[in-house]
């Protein structure tokens, strides 16, 4: 191919050292989910993955002459988000505003919107199956620089405090909003694995799963009584220099 002859000499040097460079872009599909779903969740009524963009750059260091085994490290700027509507029964909730706390058990509908803008640093081991296929497995750490987690409850009823408390019905356009954005964790980490298929000499199609291993909320935050883990499938393209 003509492109191979245009390669700058610095890249040729890198190749001699067993280094390759890659830039990539894609979208994240997935959500933050409790695992397993707690008994309070009776039905997931709707789920929207939202348009979560991702861009990144990687360095690959091949460990052997045959370029079979390698290590890939890089950085990734991405959004993880979702929007869900669920039906819950006897679901613990607590809203704090101006130092006043309203807590109770909610039965009815809950809408949730989660969005986290993160800078992630993945390090994975790489195995080249053949000329067209790579697979990888590794871990990532991420710093979330912008977080939101909010929503509202509607069409249901609250039992004040506990299931024996006063019953307050919300219907028609009556709803109560909540915002737990300040309680989201800044540092996240998890595992990732995936594969790349070289569609053209320089162009690959990538698919990777990132599986968060710590709760998206700070451990001191107890209102959401179960842990939620971000699990995303990233699909995108890479360009190898």
């Amino acid at each position: 191919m003509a492109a191979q002859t245009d390669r700058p000499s610095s890249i040729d040097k890198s190749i001699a050292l067993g280094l390759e460079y890659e830039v990539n872009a894609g979208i994240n599909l997935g959500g933050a989910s409790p695992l397993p779903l707690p008994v309070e969740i009776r039905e997931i009524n709707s789920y929207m993955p939202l348009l979560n963009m991702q861009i990144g750059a990687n360095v690959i260091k091949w460990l052997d002459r045959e370029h079979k085994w390698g290590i890939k490290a890089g950085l990734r700027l991405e959004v993880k988000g979702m929007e869900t509507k669920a039906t819950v029964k006897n679901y613990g909730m607590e809203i704090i505003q101006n130092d006043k706390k309203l807590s109770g058990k909610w039965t009815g509908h809950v809408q949730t919107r989660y969005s986290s803008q993160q800078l992630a640093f993945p390090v994975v081991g790489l195995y080249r199956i053949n000329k067209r296929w790579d697979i990888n497995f590794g871990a990532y750490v991420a710093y979330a620089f912008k977080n939101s987690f909010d929503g509202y409850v509607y069409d249901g009823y609250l039992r004040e405090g506990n299931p024996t408390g006063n019953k307050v019905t919300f219907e028609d356009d009556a709803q109560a909003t909540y915002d737990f954005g300040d309680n989201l964790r800044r540092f996240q980490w998890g595992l990732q694995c995936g594969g790349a298929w070289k569609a053209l000499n320089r162009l690959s199609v990538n698919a990777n799963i990132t599986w968060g291993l710590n709760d998206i909320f700070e451990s001191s935050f107890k209102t959401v009584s179960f842990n939620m883990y971000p699990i995303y499938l990233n699909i995108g393209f890479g360009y190898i220099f």
Partner: protein
Amino acid sequence: MKISHWILALSIMISAVSCIQKEAPNAECDILTVTLPDDDLNRSPIIENDRVTMIVKNHVNISELAPEFQLTPGATIAPPSGTMRDFTYPQTYVVTSEDGEWNKTYTVSVQRNNIINLKYSFEDVKTVQTLQGGSYDEFLSVTEDEQTHRRDTMFWASGNPGFALTNGKNGPSTYPTFQTSDGKVGNCVELITRSTGPWGLMVSKPIAAGNLFIGKFDMNNAVAKPLQATRFGTPFTSVPRYFSGYYRYTPGETYQNWNESAKKLETVPGKLDECNIYSVFFESTDDMEYLDGSNVLSPDNPNIIAVARLSDSQRQATPDWTHFQLPFVFRPGKEIDPDKLANGHYSLTIVMSSSADGDFFSGAVGSMLLVDEIEITCQ
């Protein structure tokens, strides 16, 4: 390996751990309905979160009643539904939830027609502990039957239980309705229009007027249908002629009008808040056993027989204790049927509010109404 394989693999993984679990047994333990055999009830029983009042017909022998309860599915009640008990005094029942984790003790009492007092001095309150860790006053008045010495307790209703939802750990004097020692004689009731803060705004109820009334505050409707949450009236077997008492009123500084469509409070320059004190005598029919915020003063409400209400000028600022004596003004063509009267088909309510438009969430925060020594004079 194609991308579709990855998606398939991911969905299998996620669904493997994300199955909807089997529904848990119910945690609630409510009395949903109460019935008495033989058509003994005069009107629907009043069921509150931990109190049931059965209003029975005059002939009913209340020392032998066997109420039947319908509960939250799966819940149990002790003593069981249909147990014969003596309701000369209130009886307690314990309802336990289906999951066995929760139980609630109900006080079940019987009310005969016309147990209400005719004079109220607001000396007695019960302190209600809220589940949020605070407390508020609930006014009550006890009547003792001269012959049987049977004591009946009437609880005044107010919007305090609704305000409690957002009032955290605060005490009685932070509520819209509470007892104060600044009475005309002894203690009295103090009503203050309060802001409900960001929460109240969130559910389109930005202010709470202090209110006190004879009837029931229905928490279940407090957010979704606030006008229906104030249920006015209790059976009354005499014909009222005058409603009198003492009051003091100081309007708050800034009158604000709640714009429902814009969802915001708008200041109305120059407008002064007004209080409201009135009593309504009305017929309870099957389709309208009680009045509520949407119809208690409606000119075209066919059930209303007579109204005694502060005049326009009396509803203004009144810094010193002022006496009022209001005649019950009978509406044209309304007559009293003596049989209905004797059988408890008429009702009476007394309503007091620190902001006359408080039911529509308009008024001035800080408006303060004190009321004491009120009396209904009958024919």
